[in-house]
């Protein structure tokens, strides 16, 4: 039995099968997370407001995502008159694709990544803005002026937050000296103060860079308190106004998929990925614990703070986050120059 098992593993590790296995694994990971994070969100929202959350469909409401999915799928997919139907239909596909592609380079455990790319970090950030482009396409092609206005807001928001995020990531790349996510995690091995989050001897502002990264991640994934894209209590659905049924559902799922991606990236870059201070559980478990803690914090933040106003959002980015992240970048550059012996 064991021999058979290891043989199956060896076969699955050869090229064409390996690809299929990883595609299936990542797609199902993203889809399950997207579906069940909705449940987590609703349960979390309930608990934060001292309500039980969904309870009716299945035990503890666990079948709620299934019911939601069925409901959305039974709705008619409408393409508004005069809309660019190809772009309109294509946008939901385009919004999901970059997340799936980016997750290919995320190392979930030691050697547990679909692709060991030595510029993995670069690839994630190269694909990231496609998601933004897809939202813009969706709004633009739906021929709805309110959707276009929302899309304009999305673009300015995401561009504003892309800058501090990239500056922070550059700091990490400089400190680590590599863009390979596997190596970045390897460098954080050992006790928890080796995690990038606590490596204050490399750069005393490391915890601040983590905060900036996390805030930017919230803004990039259009989460509260920066959810100007959808703003469900004020706008109809912002950029997704014209989408019905599963078209909207896919945008909605992409938001959660992006949160998964953002939180796993934060785990890899700052919280030591699969590394753990104790050695009693496999690395994947630690990775998932850290990632889901960050995701829980996303929900926690959403149900704590009210939505910011738009100028407040841009002020935060341009007046605080960008100067601070630039400062940390320069500081770590100076520290690398001065503290490390020239090799």
């Amino acid at each position, binding site marked *: 039995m064991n021999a058979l098992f290891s043989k199956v593993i060896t076969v699955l590790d050869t090229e064409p099968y390996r690809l299929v296995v990883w595609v299936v694994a990542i797609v199902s990971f993203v889809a399950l997370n997207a579906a069940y994070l909705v449940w987590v969100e609703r349960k*979390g929202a*309930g*608990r*934060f*407001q*001292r*309500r*039980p959350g969904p*309870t009716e469909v299945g035990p503890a409401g666990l079948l709620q995502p299934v019911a939601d999915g069925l409901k959305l799928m039974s709705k008619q997919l409408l393409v508004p008159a005069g809309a660019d139907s190809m772009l309109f239909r294509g946008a939901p596909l385009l919004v999901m694709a970059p997340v799936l592609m980016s997750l290919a380079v995320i190392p979930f455990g030691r050697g547990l990544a679909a692709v060991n790319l030595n510029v993995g970090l670069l690839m994630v950030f190269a694909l990231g803005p496609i998601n933004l482009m897809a939202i813009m396409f969706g709004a633009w092609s739906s021929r709805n002026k309110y959707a276009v206005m929302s899309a304009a807001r999305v673009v300015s928001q995401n561009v504003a937050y892309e800058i501090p995020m990239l500056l922070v990531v550059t700091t990490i790349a400089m400190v680590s000296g590599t863009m390979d996510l596997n190596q970045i995690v390897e460098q954080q091995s050992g006790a928890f103060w080796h995690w990038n989050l606590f490596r204050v001897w490399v750069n005393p502002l490391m915890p601040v860079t983590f905060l900036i990264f996390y805030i930017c991640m919230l803004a990039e994934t259009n989460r509260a308190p920066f959810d100007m894209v959808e703003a469900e209590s004020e706008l109809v659905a912002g950029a997704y106004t014209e989408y019905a049924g599963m078209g909207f559902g896919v945008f909605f799922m992409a938001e959660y998929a992006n949160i998964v991606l953002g939180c796993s990236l934060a785990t890899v870059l700052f919280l030591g990925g699969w590394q753990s201070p104790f050695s009693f559980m496999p690395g994947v478990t630690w990775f998932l614990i850290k990632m889901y803690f960050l995701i829980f914090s996303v929900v*926690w*933040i959403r*149900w*704590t*703070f009210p939505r910011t106003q738009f100028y407040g959002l841009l002020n935060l980015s341009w007046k*605080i986050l960008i100067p601070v992240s630039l400062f940390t970048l320069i500081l770590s550059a100076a520290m690398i120059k001065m503290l490390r012996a020239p090799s």
Partner: protein
Amino acid sequence: MNALREIYGGFKSLLIGMRITLGQFFRPTVTVRYPHQSLKMPPRYRGHIELVGNPETGKPLCFVCKLCERACPSDCINVEGAKLEGDKRKSVTSYKLDFTKCSLCGSCVEVCREGAIRFSRDYNLAGLTKEEFLLDLVKRFQAQQAAVKAEIRNPKSEVRSAKSELSAEQKPQGQLAGAVKDGGSVS
């Protein structure tokens, strides 16, 4: 420096907010799961009126003086009665309440000398037709009496109703207690 202080102060207040919400997260929920549970109405809640029974005989106290019928500003009460053999007073045979017209002003309860009617604590009233709100209070009273008797005869059901405490408060037990209390004032 001022800007830094502002950032620090703002960040600290955000953390305080997050601590408060996390504290709420771990505390028990406070909602009533409505279709499964319902709230116990306070004693002075005004539902539609209902007949009060005499705890000794188990019959309505009402002797069809029709004061309530006359007091009603919306003309929604219709009481009929008959004098049974050996009784000094009439007893009520039909007490029709048109709840679609009733505004719960309470004139009927106020005017009743015997304390034979009172506000019920029913609030889960919903229906698809108007006829569902043409209530026959005598039938309702008889149903309540039967339920009370069943409760006494079969204590098992009492255990069950104690379990679903919130919803059970509405039903027979409360009525029985109310009837005893109100009946005490009758000579």
